């Protein structure tokens, strides 16, 4: 059988070369699509930028695919279509995020100032443009901090039990309940702490009267954070190769030390990411804080006694307050919250990276 016969049987082309569109084609088609969409939307006055964007995207998809099918071949056209769809999905997913960040920056920066970060809302009336979020920042830091102190040891130890020790029924049961806990609405967690801690336990420490407190909020946030921490730690521990554990056992290192010194450090960056996800979620929770910390316009450093504000609660208060100055404060507080969570996340990642060896 000659080579010619084989190549005919395979695909009729003996050459590996194929016609390709020039490199700038996608960019060119995109430009053309935008122009056409602008003309088609704005000339008849049919709509605004959103419609233009959608039209341009559709024209781009169809145009590039058709062009590619005509010049190149069917497989290349399908490839270009799929690639474009992936990029489109990426842009679509990113758009709301960017929009939120942009709005937050623009509206939040109006009222944002060092002053805003340094004063509370104590004695600020509806007619004053004073006041700030200091008391709320304190509250968020203390509540989220205490919740993290409670959750991280519990969650990491729980995950270690499930992955390294748990065999059979009990660990299955724990995993099941962790899954169930993941689905608990935050208001339910708040009600649970209200009924259990604020109304039943806290009177013992307060001459028989129920006590709202930042600590109660921290407890409610812990209930919400725990499943996230357990599940993410569990996944990270499972990713640590068994060969590392065996290598350590083969050196005569006891199991608990292997877990503490080999397995946990290897999984640490992932665990930190999981914990920070949980912290971010906790910082944004409002409902349980309203229920059990009640809120407080003044500075309260003591998380164990008396009402306490938090940033998300402050945003909620100000967004609904009957004062023309309140919305500005709400935006500024929202911006503060996002920046705070971002800063915490970056700090945690740097800390986790510092332990790892530089490469």
């Amino acid at each position, binding site marked *: 059988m000659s080579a010619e016969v084989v190549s005919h049987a395979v695909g009729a082309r003996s050459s590996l070369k194929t016609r390709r569109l020039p490199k700038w084609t996608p960019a060119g088609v995109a430009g053309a699509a935008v122009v056409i969409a602008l003309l088609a939307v704005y000339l008849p006055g049919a709509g605004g930028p959103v419609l233009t964007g959608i039209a341009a995207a559709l024209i781009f998809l169809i145009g590039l695919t058709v062009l590619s099918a005509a010049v190149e071949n069917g497989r290349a056209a399908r490839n270009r279509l799929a690639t474009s769809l992936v990029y489109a999905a990426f842009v679509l997913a990113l758009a709301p995020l960017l929009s939120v960040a942009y709005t937050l920056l623009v509206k939040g920066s109006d009222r944002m100032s060092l002053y805003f970060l340094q004063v509370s809302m104590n004695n600020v009336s509806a007619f004053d443009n004073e006041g700030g979020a200091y008391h709320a920042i304190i509250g968020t830091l203390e509540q989220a901090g205490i919740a993290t102190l409670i959750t991280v040891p519990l969650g990491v130890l729980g995950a270690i039990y499930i992955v390294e020790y748990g065999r059979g029924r009990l660990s299955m049961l724990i995993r099941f309940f962790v899954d169930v806990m993941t689905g608990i609405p935050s208001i339910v967690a708040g009600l649970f702490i209200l009924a259990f801690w604020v109304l039943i336990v806290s009177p013992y420490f307060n001459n028989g009267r129920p006590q709202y407190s930042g600590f109660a909020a921290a407890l409610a946030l812990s209930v919400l954070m725990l499943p996230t921490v357990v599940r993410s730690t569990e996944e990270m521990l499972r990713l640590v190769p068994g060969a590392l554990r*065996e290598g350590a056992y083969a050196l005569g290192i006891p199991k608990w030390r292997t877990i503490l010194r080999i397995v946990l450090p290897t999984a640490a960056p992932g665990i930190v990411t999981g914990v920070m996800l949980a912290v971010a979620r906790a910082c944004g929770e409002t409902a349980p804080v309203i229920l059990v910390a009640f809120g407080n316009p003044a500075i309260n450093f003591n998380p164990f006694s008396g009402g306490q504000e938090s940033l998300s609660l402050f945003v909620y208060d100000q967004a609904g307050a009957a004062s023309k100055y309140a919305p500005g404060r709400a935006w500024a507080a929202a911006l503060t919250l996002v920046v705070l969570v971002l800063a915490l996340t970056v700090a945690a990642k740097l800390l986790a990276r510092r332990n790892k060896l530089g490469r």
Partner: protein
Amino acid sequence: MAKRIEAVNVSAYYGSFRAIDNITMAIEPKSVTALIGPSGCGKSTFLRSINRMHEVLPGAKVGGQLLIDGQNIYDRDIDVTAVRRMIGMVFQRPNPFPTMSIYENVVAGLRLNGVRKKSLLDAACEKALRGANLWNEVKDRLNRPGAGLSGGQQQRLCIARTIAVEPQVVLMDEPCSALDPISTLAIEDLIAELKNEYTIVIVTHNMQQAARVSDRTGFFSIDKTGEPGRLIEYDDTAKIFTNPSVKRTEDYITGRFG
């Protein structure tokens, strides 16, 4: 220092599956013993039951007796971690600890068993790295990550890590199967040196390697899949490779396997 190993009717199970059946063999101190045989015949399983690594897997059990200088390591009152410190193991794939530097990898066994003194650790590190023929290559970068070495260097690092705790027996499960010929040669030279101090058991698929490095060779085989592996013949390496007394050994060694 080196210890004599005696397996008496050792069987090992994965759940209800019996992977090896009634292995009885004696391994002399300060010798190199090679275990050869077709894939799946239970060489790794047997090796792992010598330092109680087999039972790490869920559902895995060992039956019979394994005597180290006359002491059965499967007795109830035996401290497993002490057994593993005495009987080190090198695995098929190099597995340095990824969060640790070269130095920390080598002294991990000492440090995590409670040795704190810096001077002791430093000395042990250098001795082990020299023993593993790696010192000259890494002495200037002991603080670099262990996972940043080449495959052959990583394997020698794992050997250094193993001999740093001064075991009396070193078990090696296909230590060269992921290495190039030059690294392989380095490790074979190393085995020849280690023999002066340690009892060595090595699993290998490479007949030439078994013939080169070992004093005695054990041939394992299975009748068919699902059956447990058995020790078919165990004798001096020279005898096994020139004049085996069992037909199956000869078939396997000469490549007429079946």
